[in-house]
């Protein structure tokens, strides 16, 4: 297997890394636990991401965006630090690489001009609804339809497990051609009407983690969307989303690894202070070995994430690496955090410590953004070939 080797961050990225860590620790980390317990996205804290320029990732400078100043490696550094400080806010950064890229690259100009500056400024959230109750991985099996009627499309169906469900705008994936599999899926720009409108209803799930992102369902009953809100063209939705999916995967993994690192740092500090039988517990290998193992795995996974992003920046295919870290990273993070909780003994079990919260938060990304199964299948297909294609 060939591999690419370039381990150093250049000076610009090093400085950015220091700055983004400082930003996250001073502006985002304080109050994480309190915010994590509420089904409410703190827009004030979120807006600080805008002040630092993170929401403008790969978006036009004319709208206040970063242009090409930030590459994927820089975004990786940012997402990792944000995940370390406040996990749920990290989701907002993932939106930059999927929903926002679709809007920027494919949406009609009138939508780009009005929405992008608002988004970059941190004034508004956006959701992207692909998944349905009947299937997330099986996207081609979606049943929400968008049937053309004159100057409108009529949406019917229910999207489920969508983040930021009460955002004012959503990109809705629906079938314009119900019989055409994934080639029949189109994407629509759908501003949400107010609550009194009977054609759209939204509900928020009561989740065990990532509560602030308000995962939920949106149901459409003959909801009319102007035809000009079709993004790009009919049947193009699946292909538009693929590029964003690839880059989102290492970012999801880094978000989880950042969170795990925070837990690991807590466990390390605790193991030095807590004494039993006259010794710090760090002196017992039952405590230090799991820490060493977790640190090893995190270091390895982190490197693979950055390699994937480094390739993304150079237009070198990285789908396999992205899939590798997407199934590996969140699961590794979960197990690490669980181990850190156990290191803390019975204190770790308290909800006044952030460990349990971090654990349920990262678990969400073992499911969302592409499940472990889907990603392992992708890796298998890359390595084994078409024989590994799922039945």
């Amino acid at each position, binding site marked *: 297997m060939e591999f690419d080797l370039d381990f150093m961050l250049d000076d610009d990225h090093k400085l950015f890394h220091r700055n983004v860590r400082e930003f996250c620790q001073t502006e985002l980390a304080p109050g994480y636990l309190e915010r994590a317990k509420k089904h409410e996205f703190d827009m004030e804290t979120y807006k600080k991401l805008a002040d630092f320029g993170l929401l403008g990732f790969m978006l036009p400078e004319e709208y206040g965006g970063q242009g090409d100043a930030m590459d994927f490696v820089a975004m990786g550094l940012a997402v990792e630090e944000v995940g370390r400080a406040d996990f749920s806010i990290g989701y907002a950064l993932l939106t930059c690489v999927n929903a926002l890229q679709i809007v920027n690259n494919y949406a009609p100009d009138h939508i780009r001009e009005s929405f992008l500056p608002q988004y970059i400024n941190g004034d508004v959230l956006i959701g992207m609804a692909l998944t349905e109750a009947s299937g997330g991985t099986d996207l081609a099996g979606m049943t929400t339809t968008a049937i053309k009627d004159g100057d409108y499309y009529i949406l019917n169906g229910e999207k489920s497990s969508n983040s930021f469900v009460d955002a004012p705008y959503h990109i809705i994936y629906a079938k314009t051609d119900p019989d055409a599999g994934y080639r029949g899926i189109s994407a629509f720009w759908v501003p949400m009407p107010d609550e009194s409108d009977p054609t759209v209803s939204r509900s928020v799930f009561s989740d065990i983690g990532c509560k602030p992102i308000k995962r939920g369902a949106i149901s459409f009953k003959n909801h009319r969307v102007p035809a000009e809100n079709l993004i790009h063209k009919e049947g193009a939705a699946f292909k538009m989303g693929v590029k964003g999916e690839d880059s989102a995967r290492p970012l999801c993994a880094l978000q989880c690894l950042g969170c795990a690192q925070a837990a690991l*740092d*807590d466990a390390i*500090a*605790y193991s030095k*202070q807590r004494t039993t039988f006259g010794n710090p517990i760090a002196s017992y290998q039952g405590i230090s070995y799991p820490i060493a193992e977790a640190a090893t795995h995190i270091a390895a996974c982190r490197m693979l994430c950055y390699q994937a992003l480094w390739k993304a920046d150079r237009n070198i295919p990285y789908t396999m690496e992205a899939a590798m870290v997407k199934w590996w990273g969140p699961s590794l993070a979960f197990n690490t955090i669980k181990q850190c909780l156990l290191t803390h003994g019975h204190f770790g079990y308290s909800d*006044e410590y952030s460990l349990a919260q971090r654990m349920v938060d990262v678990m969400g990304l073992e499911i969302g953004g592409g499940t472990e199964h889907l990603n392992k299948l992708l890796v298998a297909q890359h390595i084994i070939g078409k024989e590994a294609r799922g039945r």
Partner: protein
Amino acid sequence: MSNILVFSENRELLCEMLGKACELASDNQGVVASGWDSDEEYAKFGADKSYIFDKLSESGRVEDVVPCLKEIVSREDASIILIGATKRGKEIAARIAAAKDAVCITDCKEIGREGSTVEVQRMVYGGMALKVEKIERFPLVVTVLPRMFAKKELQKDIRSEAMSIPTDSKINLIERKTSCIQVVDVEAADRVVVVGRGFEKKEDLSMAQELADVIGGVLACTRPIAEDYRWMPEGVYVGLTGKSSKGKLNISLGASGQIHYVAGIVDANVTVAIDANEQAPIWNATDYGIVGDLYSILPELIAEIKKNKI
């Protein structure tokens, strides 16, 4: 003949430095005081000579004295110049040092002389280390912190001269707003409770005040609480550039333990801390502590102490 010059706009500090100046003076060196107080006061604490400045006018500033001090340094051929380390004093010291192409040591903790070498000690890296310097280049300017040296009654016969201060400063005084807030004397307190950024709002400090009251102590804070948040006056912040907590007990609440703060509690007999962050550096500076939410621990602590006091 080279003499030792001592200056401060703060009388107490000037008198503290006079004793040290006498110690540093070799047999043929005199100690010269310059300030706004009485020459009797200076004589009492060891000055052989003094320059008494005219009272500053309404629009006059302490810093206007710089040309006078330069003149005195020349006249007295001052080899060592001790200046009180107030903010004004430090600006003045730096300017004199530059004018005389001298080395200047700021906020010294100790000065000693061995032959023609002067050894000075001061804290560096925010209190992480003590820097000991041996200097053989004169004149030497040193700024001295309040209460670093004790006054010594060394009654001398004194010669005095009045000096007027030039009024042609390029800096115009527009207004002076003196703070009338009476602040507690943290350095004299036996028990000190220090609040840090772990507190979410100003109103919550009342809980900490209650703790201070119940243990018979005073309430102080870390620098950010005074300087950035302005929840408490500057005169009560504990740290390298602030007050020292050096009594029997210091309790830190929600202070993460940055080195600047920790430098202010090194001399406290027993240190206690409550903070939510188990990775915080405060634990290295703590004798007894609890990791946890101060909002739930503090009321419990107050109640427990009250219970025991009955």
